[in-house]
C-alpha cells in the first residue's frame, strides 16, 4: 500500500475520533447529529481499507443516507426554532470522564500491546489478496447459504420495526 493511501486512512481515523468527540460533548444536539454523519463517513472509509467494499456502501446508504437524516428530522421536529432552545442541558461531566479513563485506558492498552505481541502467523500476502478480492458475490451466496436463518429473521425484524414505528408515530 502506498504512503498516500495510508495517509488517507489515517485522516479517516482521525475524522472518526474527532467527530465522535463532537457527538459526545457538543452542547448543540443539531451539531452533534451532523458530526455523527462525518463519523459514519470515516467508518465507511475504514471499511473500504479493510476490504469490505460492499459493507462500506451499505454503511453510506443506511447510516449517512437514512439514520442521520432521520435523526436530523427528529431534532428539528422536537425543537421548534423559537420555542425551545436547541441547547442540551449540561450534566456533570465528572462521571463520564472518570469512566472513560478507567475503562478506555486498559482497552486501548490491550489492543495496542497484548494483541500486537500475540499476533498469529497469517501471511501478509494472504491478507492483501483477501482485501483486494471482490466480496459482493460471496456475501450474496453466504446470505442464501450459511446465513439464511439470520437473513430471514432480520427481514421479520425490519417488518416489525416498520409497522411498529408507524404505529407509534401516528397521531392518535
Amino acid at each position: 500500500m502506498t504512503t498516500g493511501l495510508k495517509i488517507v486512512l489515517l485522516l479517516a481515523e482521525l475524522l472518526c475520533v474527532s467527530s465522535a468527540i463532537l457527538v459526545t460533548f457538543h452542547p448543540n444536539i443539531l451539531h452533534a447529529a451532523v458530526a455523527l454523519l462525518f463519523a459514519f463517513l470515516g467508518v465507511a472509509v475504514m471499511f473500504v481499507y479493510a476490504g469490505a467494499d460492499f459493507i462500506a456502501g451499505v454503511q453510506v446508504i443506511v447510516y449517512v443516507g437514512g439514520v442521520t437524516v432521520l435523526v436530523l428530522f427528529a431534532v428539528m421536529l422536537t425543537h421548534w426554532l423559537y420555542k425551545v432552545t436547541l441547547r442540551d442541558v449540561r450534566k456533570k461531566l465528572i462521571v463520564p470522564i472518570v469512566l472513560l479513563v478507567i475503562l478506555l485506558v486498559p482497552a486501548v492498552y490491550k489492543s495496542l500491546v497484548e494483541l500486537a505481541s500475540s499476533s498469529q502467523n497469517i501471511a501478509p500476502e494472504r491478507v492483501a489478496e483477501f482485501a483486494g478480492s471482490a466480496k459482493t458475490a460471496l456475501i450474496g451466496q453466504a446470505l442464501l447459504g450459511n446465513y439464511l436463518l439470520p437473513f430471514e429473521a432480520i427481514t421479520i425484524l425490519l417488518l416489525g420495526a416498520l409497522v411498529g414505528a408507524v404505529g407509534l408515530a401516528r397521531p392518535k
Partner: protein
Amino acid sequence: MNILDWAVSLEGYLCVGAILFFLGLAAVLYRRNAIGILLGIELILNAASINFIAFSKYRAVAIDGQLVTLFIILIAAAEAAVALAIILRLYRLRETVDAGEASIMRN
C-alpha cells in the same frame, strides 16, 4: 513502526473502535436529550462493526465478520426508526425530549 503503518494495522482499527465505543458510552451517560442518547448508541454499534471488520480481515481472512456487520447495520437502522418514533411520541405527550422527564411508568 511509524504512525502510518500503525493506521493500517489491526491495532489501529481496534484503537479507533475502543475510542468510539467509550465516547458512545460517555454520550449515553452525559446526554439528557433522548436523541443524544440515541447518537451515543449509534457510535457504540459502529465501534462493534469496526472490530468485526478488522478481525475479519486480519485474523479470520474470511467474510463472516462482514456478514455480522451487515446484520449490525440493519438492526441499528430498525432500532433508530423505533427509537425516534418513541421520542416523537414522548414529545407529543409531554412536550419534552429529556430522558429524565420520561417517568410516566415510575409511580
